[in-house]
């Protein structure tokens, strides 16, 4: 039986060992690449992210990955964005001035107010009955961000709460974004990644 292949987009920022090892422990093959040909042959593309929005978009542009990802999204290939990777799916971000994003899911990335930042393990509330995340409703996962993807409610599939509630997972068809770090959320995160990959790739 062929194992599923997850392609992690390498745009020169960050360390992918944790996400790679999580996928391998789930018995998926995991390739880390910036080559569009490789990535288009994968069952699912994973868009990681660390650092600031403008630098990430710039790094992807340099590697010709922006139009590639938009094309793949239109073709229906599953794409999952993690943390900053989720924010990159948005139309734009206000981090360090206004920067255009991939525009794969409507909405803008704005500063997290009034709390300024969201750090630590927090519970996720799954909304809109999304089947991918429902098994993890009420579980704690690890957050580490100060901007939030303010997507319209119809694209939100999970929220979290500090002083107020805000979206922490979004979805449009086969495009999914998670604001938290499932690869740094131990067993809970691992289960989420498994449900996501299986749910998005089982025909």
């Amino acid at each position, binding site marked *: 039986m062929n194992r599923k292949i997850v392609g992690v987009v390498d745009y020169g*920022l*960050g*360390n992918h*060992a*944790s996400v*790679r*090892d*999580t996928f391998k422990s789930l018995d998926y093959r995991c390739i880390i690449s910036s080559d569009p040909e490789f990535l288009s042959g994968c069952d699912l593309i994973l868009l990681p992210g*660390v*650092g*600031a929005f403008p630098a990430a978009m710039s790094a992807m542009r340099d590697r010709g990955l922006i139009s590639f990802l938009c094309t793949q999204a239109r073709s229906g290939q599953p794409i999952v964005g993690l943390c900053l990777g989720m924010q990159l799916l948005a139309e734009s971000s206000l981090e*360090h001035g206004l920067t255009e994003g991939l525009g794969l899911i409507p909405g803008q990335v704005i500063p997290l107010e009034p709390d*300024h*930042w*969201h*750090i*630590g*393990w*927090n*519970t996720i509330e799954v909304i809109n009955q999304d089947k991918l995340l429902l098994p993890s409703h009420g579980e*704690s996962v*690890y957050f*580490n*961000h*100060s*901007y939030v993807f303010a997507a319209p409610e119809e694209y939100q599939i999970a929220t979290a*709460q*500090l002083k107020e509630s805000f979206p922490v997972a979004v979805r449009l068809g086969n495009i999914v974004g998670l604001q938290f*770090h499932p*690869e*740094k*959320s*131990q*067993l809970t*995160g*691992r289960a989420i990644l498994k449900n996501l990959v299986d749910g998005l790739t089982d025909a």
Partner: protein
Amino acid sequence: MLKKRLIGVVTVRQGLAVQSFGYSRYLPLGSPELVIENLDRWGADEILVQCIDRSVQKLGPDFSLLKRVGDLGLSTPLIYGGGIRHTDDAVKVISLGADRILIDSILWDSQPMIEAISRELGVQAVIANMPVHIKLGQIYWRNYRSSEEVLLNINTAQQLPIEWISEILLTDWRHEGFSKGFDRRIPLVFPIIKNPFILFGGLSEYDQYTDVLSIPNVVGVGIGNFLSYKEHAIQNIKDKITAISLRTAHYTAE
């Protein structure tokens, strides 16, 4: 609901993981990677690795240790501190696999640098380490390289670049390593209240954890030496403490 955190602290000196006592006496523990890997398996909420001799030796961050730790593929968030001098250092530390950084010397040497780092990484990724102790009811902040101390009050505290850091690690350096030693007045007397605290230094008992984690502004405790004496040290704390909202203990099944 946001949970409080148990943070496993790994102190590294000359490449060796050590137990530290008041930052003046050290006993060997072993390989930093294996101590860290163990904390990951136990389910610590975060792991903090502090390389305490890097700034003193003017060596910069221990990138080779970070690379080895990054390659472990940990599933637990990692905080790195030790020798971070400027933005390039900070960015490289994160790119090698740390999720957040701990800064200390820069607070003394070059405060404008903190704004630059914070803009680059996001304020959530920048934690300030402040070794403190209380003398005659007043709280003093210590420069561990020079042993110089500054009295912290509302005025002196206002000069710190607190808008560019998220959490503050308050280290009771005097009592670090000493059982039940933590001076619980510290989080109550510390003059900055806008930033949440992580407390560290001499926190060894279950009732201490329950006590300090009940303080609203305290988001987590760092525990160092005391995690090395028994198997399942992290899980034991989580099992025993019921009054505080912590993640439940996990015992890995292989």
